[in-house]
């Protein structure tokens, strides 16, 4: 008899199936073992990325795995296509959390490699034009990236492209969003 699958080490199967259904045509069927395999793959993906991100934290003698570490790890491990969508997702998440616009808007430069949504809607391949030719540098998504997810996501005032082409990043040294920080130390 097969052993019991510990469900709490996987994403709930209903959620997994729902996401799969977005991709599959309506007539497609999914075998049970396929559903379970995808469930297992997701957990493996989380572990894979987290381990790499955690290694970087340890090398830099930091205790907390941040969103930026995760994005760096994804870039390093070949999932760089996910990075920009995730950056925007996080930005919208923060906005939907109700940060006052005055807090979000600062005098810092716009994010160098992430395009404003309006530009994305015009472009066919936003990534290929935004991404630099070579990103083999381990620190590509590090300090030079221009934002810190856990401090906040900075950009110029609305409608103002600002120094969008500038590649020198400004990482603020003060924390705009102490009220937004979850239990960073207690997770």
């Amino acid at each position, binding site marked *: 008899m097969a052993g019991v699958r510990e469900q709490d080490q996987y994403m709930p199967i209903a959620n997994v199936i729902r996401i799969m259904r977005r991709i599959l045509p309506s007539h497609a069927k999914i075998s049970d073992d396929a559903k379970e395999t995808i469930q297992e793959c997701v957990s493996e993906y989380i572990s894979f*990325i987290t381990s790499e991100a955690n290694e970087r934290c340890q090398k830099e003698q930091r205790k907390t795995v941040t969103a930026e570490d995760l994005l760096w790890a994804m870039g390093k491990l070949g999932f760089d296509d996910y990075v920009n969508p995730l950056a925007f997702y996080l930005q919208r998440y923060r906005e939907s959390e109700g940060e006052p616009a005055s807090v979000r808007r600062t005098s810092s430069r716009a994010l160098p490699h992430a395009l404003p949504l309006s530009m994305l809607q015009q472009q066919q391949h936003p990534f290929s034009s935004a991404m630099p030719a070579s990103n083999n540098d381990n620190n590509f998504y590090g300090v030079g990236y221009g934002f810190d997810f856990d401090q906040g996501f900075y950009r110029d005032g609305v409608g103002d492209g600002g120094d969008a082409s500038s590649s020198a990043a400004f990482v603020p040294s003060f924390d705009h969003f102490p009220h937004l920080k979850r239990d960073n130390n207690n*997770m």
Partner: protein
Amino acid sequence: MRQAGAYSNLLCGGISGRTGPHSLPLARIKKIMKNSSEDVKMISGVAPIVFSKACELFIEELTRRSWIMAIDGKRRTLNKEDIASAVIATDIFDFLITLVSNSDATDANNTVIQMETI
């Protein structure tokens, strides 16, 4: 191809989904992150949120690639072999090779053990 899928989700308001803000449970994600290695100490608040979206992208990509294999086999049912084929065909999915081939090996081993104890 991958990028288009990711963006259409974003532009169509992927954040506030029907099932609440995140379609994958954050507490479960955090648990899996902690289990990934002995020395994961602390995890920032937004990290599981990044994963809730990243896992969606991952599932979508793996599903898309697996479905292509099913179509190649002229089938309408996505099965485990299709996933294994997609994993083998995709470089960035190399970390999954053991997992998709292990399951078969494990089942075979269990069967052998059961036969021996009978």
